[in-house]
């Protein structure tokens, strides 16, 4: 399981993004273990970022690997260790669009419409047992419009992505992402309240 602790960047010294920055710095200073640590820490995060774009599991794994290779090739160009998580997630997201476009060309249209961003049969989600809170969040998310579900999954994965990336993934104007994100979150909050799970 990917139990990377989540925290808002900058507010918690133990955030995975800080740990990633430290590992990246160690690697650049010549410690190969730094790269290993970075890979173990952020691969599960990249997985979520890539899967949120709607890519299937097999292609997602390939995209995660390609992202790390491009990090090794471009490590010189990353000026701030603090930016490493964002850099990786942005690269992963872009690589995922590219792979997604290629995949769509290989796939019949109706499959394409059904496949994007929806749970697929190969993923183990149907067998997962959730605790009460997660189950509640899941039921409430299910009641949101599909577009909201996709958007919330994308913006929730990794360090909060910039709106340009989200807009590109969903084919929406950049200016509408902020308000749409807000509306989707409001709907989720409303559903949670109705379900009695929140004060």
């Amino acid at each position, binding site marked *: *399981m*990917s*139990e*990377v602790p*989540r925290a*808002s960047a900058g507010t918690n010294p133990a955030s995975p993004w800080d740990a990633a920055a430290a590992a990246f710095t160690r690697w650049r200073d*010549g410690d190969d273990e730094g*790269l*290993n640590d970075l*890979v*173990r820490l952020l*691969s*599960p995060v990249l*997985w*979520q970022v890539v*899967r*949120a774009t709607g890519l299937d*599991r097999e292609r997602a*794994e390939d995209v*995660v*690997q390609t992202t*790390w*290779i491009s990090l*090794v090739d471009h490590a010189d160009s990353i000026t701030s260790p603090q930016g490493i998580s964002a850099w990786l997630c942005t690269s992963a997201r872009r690589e995922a669009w590219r792979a997604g476009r290629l995949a769509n060309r290989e796939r019949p249209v109706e499959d394409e419409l059904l496949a994007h961003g929806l*749970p697929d049969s190969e*993923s*183990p*989600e149907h067998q*997962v047992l*959730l605790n009460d*809170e*997660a189950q509640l*969040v*899941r039921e409430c*998310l299910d009641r949101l419009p599909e577009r909201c579900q996709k958007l*919330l*999954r994308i*913006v*929730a*994965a990794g360090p*909060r992505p910039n709106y340009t990336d989200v807009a590109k993934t969903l084919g929406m104007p950049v200016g509408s992402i902020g308000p749409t*994100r*807000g509306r989707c*979150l409001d709907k*989720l*909050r409303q559903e*949670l*309240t109705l379900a009695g799970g*929140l*004060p």
Partner: protein
Amino acid sequence: MNETTGAPRSDEELLDAVAKLWERLDPPPDDLADGVLARLAAQDLEYELLTLVESDEALAGVRSTTMLRAPDETGTWSLEYLGPGFRVQLRISRRGRQARLDGWVSPPQPMTVMLSSVLRKGGVLEAQVSDSGRFEFPVAPAGACRMTFVTESGGRPQATPPFWI
């Protein structure tokens, strides 16, 4: 998080809850990171890494081979690396900002040796291993360097990990 205070959850808290849910619903394959590391290893190995087996520090004080030396340090130190089928001894002599590097390959075999600075890309010095196994770089760059050995029979080049001159 706010069950006790009764305050509505913030956007960030809701997004964290969504992220957590997806981590549970759609976990990565167990071997995701191992696959990445294996792929990186396959990718990275344009050369095979030699192993540092010995380092003799003739400078004052205890120093690490990976440690930055003062720009005006004077002294001689040696490093020994082990590769597949051969051993390399290096002796680095430094006087102020001038450094020289002498090396011995045993058993002797024809090889091209390249000395490059890790941080300053571009400048690569070349030397040939003599019949007796000797090679030299009368003027060596300072800072983190790496030495690469290419045999005449081809095959993957052998490289040292970075070391400081």
